[in-house]
């Protein structure tokens, strides 16, 4: 007997997401992903100064802060064919790298861990045994029996206060929670430590960006972070060293705690490895350019189709037409007027609010497609593209993570284990560790360049008469992001964002191809339909950001059509 479950709101994500699933015989047989908020930022951008767009679009998301601003200035520069100085490129890479560290750490601990970690079970843990377990996995100095006892007392006090706050009414004691009490206590302790370490990253980002969230140091043509080693109001060696030290401390936490916890969770939940693959077409953007012209990169971008690693194709650089010519979005199942699948430059979208209709329209999200196919984006996509194409650093790290999981689980785990729900988490942890090293590498490159006497940060943009089109892309923490702009006589004529969470959370299209969230839920087990913990596990593994995912554009500048909701 099939049963329908609606989970609304999905919590511990950014934004307003509703998931509906059909359950039959203890497993999910159908799924619908629905974005529940619309803001219309792309309408608001029309007619404005292209240099201002970065500030508007950064407000698409404060969890994915920095990423839309980066994509935006790149889109305008692409339209103007404007190259930026090397320092600006490297400073942007530091913004990208440092933000990524904070974002991935927060995602695993604050937004996902409670799907796997039973906080209440930690009350039954023995702190000394917890120390033994933790020491068997890692040399992290924070893993002491004293600290674990203090964390346990903290949880005890919270429970006894009768005010559980954010821990109230959750799925504690759920049959799918498998960790022993000591592993739960260790994870709760790391959950609290993660809050301190993510904050260390934000200090480094603030020094470059002026504030975080929502950095205010980018500019069309480069950056506004003044560089001068001989001045006190600029980026000098004291400031630069502070950045380096913060990043090194965060890197230690990533390598000794985050990666290890992830491997332990993966190993202790080995029965979950097959679940949650869904769409196995993968798409990633090249990023972390190593030169001013952005023709070489430290992060590989490309595609894999149908889960076949041999099918990998790399994008050569930002100008590679194979991406920009083959992206379309479908509104067949979204609350918009019309039924089309168009290229971002061609889109003409009008909102048409409606009710949730699983056989018709049910979301504010569009369905992006590459060569007509749904694609999964995110850290997993990028790590797979790197692994399949023989990117040395990525191959080494992915193999290292798989070895760690295998040793804890006592069974050999291969790269195909990465395709599922836990694999998405593992790939994110691996990428986080890579980004820590790349951030420090690009820091060295910046310091070397400043040491040579190059203090350039900005090439002024000039907006000619007529029309220019540009696309800026960026590999954000949640995956491939692209911004598309058409400029007319120095003003924005239209602006379109095709966002990672739209790729992943988007609905079916006119051919009924499911989006990645929807496809990944199929065949997931559901032990208790009243407490659908398993749905949260798979959805959270994508790191949803729904504010990012919902966009619209009306290139004609028409008034939004008013349609009464039924």
């Amino acid at each position, binding site marked *: 007997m099939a049963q329908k479950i609606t989970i*609304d*709101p999905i*919590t*511990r994500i950014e934004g*307003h997401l509703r998931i509906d699933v059909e359950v039959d015989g203890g497993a999910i047989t159908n799924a619908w992903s629905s974005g*529940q*908020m619309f*803001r219309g930022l792309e309408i*608001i951008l029309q007619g*404005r*100064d292209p*240099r201002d767009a970065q*500030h508007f679009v950064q407000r*698409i*998301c*404060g*969890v994915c802060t920095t990423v839309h601003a980066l994509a935006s200035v790149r889109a305008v520069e692409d339209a103007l064919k404007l190259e930026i*100085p090397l320092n600006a490129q490297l400073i942007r890479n530091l913004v990208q790298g440092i933000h990524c560290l904070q974002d991935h750490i927060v995602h695993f601990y*604050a937004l996902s861990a409670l799907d796997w970690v039973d906080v*209440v079970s930690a009350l039954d843990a023995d702190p000394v045994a917890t120390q033994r377990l933790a020491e068997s996995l890692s040399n992290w100095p924070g893993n002491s029996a004293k600290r674990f006892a203090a964390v346990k007392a903290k949880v005890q006090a*919270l*429970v*006894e*206060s*009768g005010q559980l*706050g*954010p821990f*109230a*009414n*959750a*799925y*504690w*004691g759920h049959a799918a929670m498998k960790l022993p009490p000591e592993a739960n206590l260790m994870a709760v302790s790391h959950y609290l430590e993660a*809050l*301190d370490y993510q904050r260390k990253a934000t*200090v480094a980002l*603030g020094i*470059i960006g*002026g*504030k975080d*969230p929502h950095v*205010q140091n980018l*500019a069309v043509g*480069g*950056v*506004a*972070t*003044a560089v001068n080693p001989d001045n006190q*109001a600029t980026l000098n060696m004291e400031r630069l060293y502070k950045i380096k030290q913060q990043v090194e401390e965060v890197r230690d936490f990533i390598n000794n705690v985050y990666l290890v916890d992830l491997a332990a969770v993966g190993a202790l939940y080995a029965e979950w490895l097959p679940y949650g693959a869904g769409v196995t077409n993968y798409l990633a953007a090249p990023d972390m350019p190593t030169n001013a012209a952005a023709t070489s990169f430290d992060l590989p971008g490309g595609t894999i189709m149908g889960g076949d690693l041999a099918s990998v194709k790399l994008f050569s650089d930002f100008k590679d037409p194979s991406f920009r010519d083959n992206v379309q979005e479908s509104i067949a199942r979204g609350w918009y007027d019309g039924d089309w699948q168009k290229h971002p430059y061609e889109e003409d979208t009008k909102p048409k609010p409606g009710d949730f209709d699983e056989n018709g329209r049910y979301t504010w999200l569009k369905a992006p497609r590459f060569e007509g196919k749904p694609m999964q984006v995110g850290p997993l996509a990028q790590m797979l593209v790197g692994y399949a194409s023989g990117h040395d650093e990525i191959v080494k790290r992915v193999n290292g993570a798989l070895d760690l999981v295998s040793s804890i689980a006592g069974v050999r785990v291969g790269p195909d284990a990465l395709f599922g729900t836990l694999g998405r988490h593992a790939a994110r942890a691996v990428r986080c560790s890579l980004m820590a090293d790349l951030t420090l590498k690009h820091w060295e490159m910046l310091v070397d360049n400043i040491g040579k006497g190059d*203090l*350039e*940060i*900005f090439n*002024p*943009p*000039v907006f000619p008469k007529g029309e220019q089109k540009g696309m800026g892309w960026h590999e954000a923490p949640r995956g491939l992001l692209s911004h598309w702009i058409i400029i007319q006589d120095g003003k924005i004529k239209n602006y379109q964002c095709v966002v990672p969470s739209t790729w992943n959370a988007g609905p079916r299209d006119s051919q009924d191809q499911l989006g990645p969230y929807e496809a990944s839920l199929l065949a997931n087990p559901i032990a208790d339909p009243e407490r659908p913990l398993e749905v949260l596990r798979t959805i959270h593994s994508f790191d949803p950001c729904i*504010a990012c995912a919902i966009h619209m554009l009306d290139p004609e500048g028409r*008034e939004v059509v*008013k349609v*009464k909701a039924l």
Partner: protein
Amino acid sequence: MADTVNKTLDPRLNRRGFLKGCTMAAAALGLSETMVPKMVEAATSAQRPPVIWLHFQECTGCSETLLRGAHPDLARLILDIISLDYHETVMAAAGHQAEEAMHQSMEKNAGKYLLVVEGGIPLAENGVYCKIAGKNAVDILKEVAAKSAAIIAYGTCATFGGVQAAKPNPTGAVGVDSIISDKPIINISGCPPNPVNLLGTILHYLTFNRLPALDGLKRPKFAYGRRIHDHCERRAHFDEGRFVEQFGDQFHKLGYCLYKVGCKGPETFANCPVARFNNEAGVWPVSVGHGCIGCTEPNFWDTMTPFYDRIPNVKIPGSGIIEDADRLGTKILGVTAAAVGVHAAVGIGKRLIKGKSDGGE
């Protein structure tokens, strides 16, 4: 103002119902019956003040500031100081269990909880542009506000409508005080605001049991009482007529005033130069070399844009009032910019001021 520090069990709460609630809570937690007396004892002793946090049309940047806050840090805040009974980004529960948690807190703490709102509230099409658990944002706000003790609108979206309210405001977004008029409201604007201003307000309220003094826009004076320009470390450069003409130029490398590359500090009320962002980073946008964009002011997305054009009619030291600068989108609130330069000394560097900005200025 309700006393938020609840020292005694609300006598209106039926004891048998209360015991039953504790028993159910214990069962839900997988705890044994022996825990029930402890929970009863706890629930009748000093409680952490309950807070319900709602998200509407937002980007979660305001919630993210809590992760950056260091005094108190997030763990201390939610484990020791307040009871964060509903917050979609951090709470463990989801779906109907999450909604139940909120309603339990609303019933138990009626008239006593603090409501924090993040995000704008869309009113167009009867509010369909933002829904949670099948309800429109505006209806949720009214329902939760009705039993709150006071409301903090956190961030420029919740205070003034924010980015979605920029022209042409397709969804009819507004801030909290356009909808709620019968409750004390504190506006903490900024995009996002500095978390010290929220945490300072909460601590002020819990410690002194009253709201901090507010300005005409309901913003705490301790944070929004002065213009950015008044406390800016680059003010001396303004007064001496030393300006950055373009990012990366020789004057930018010397930390000169950013007014001519669009800084809106002269028109913006906020404590950024004093409070600084990101703890020991000790920064704010001007300190790294980018102008203020005026994000604490109402409708700044329209009044302060274009961001890279300078405010017109500001008396530049040593050169009189500049009349021919680009006009900003709409009239800036209440402050005549001309007043800004009154105390400015005659600058020694009488550089030529270009009226119309070309790319990059």
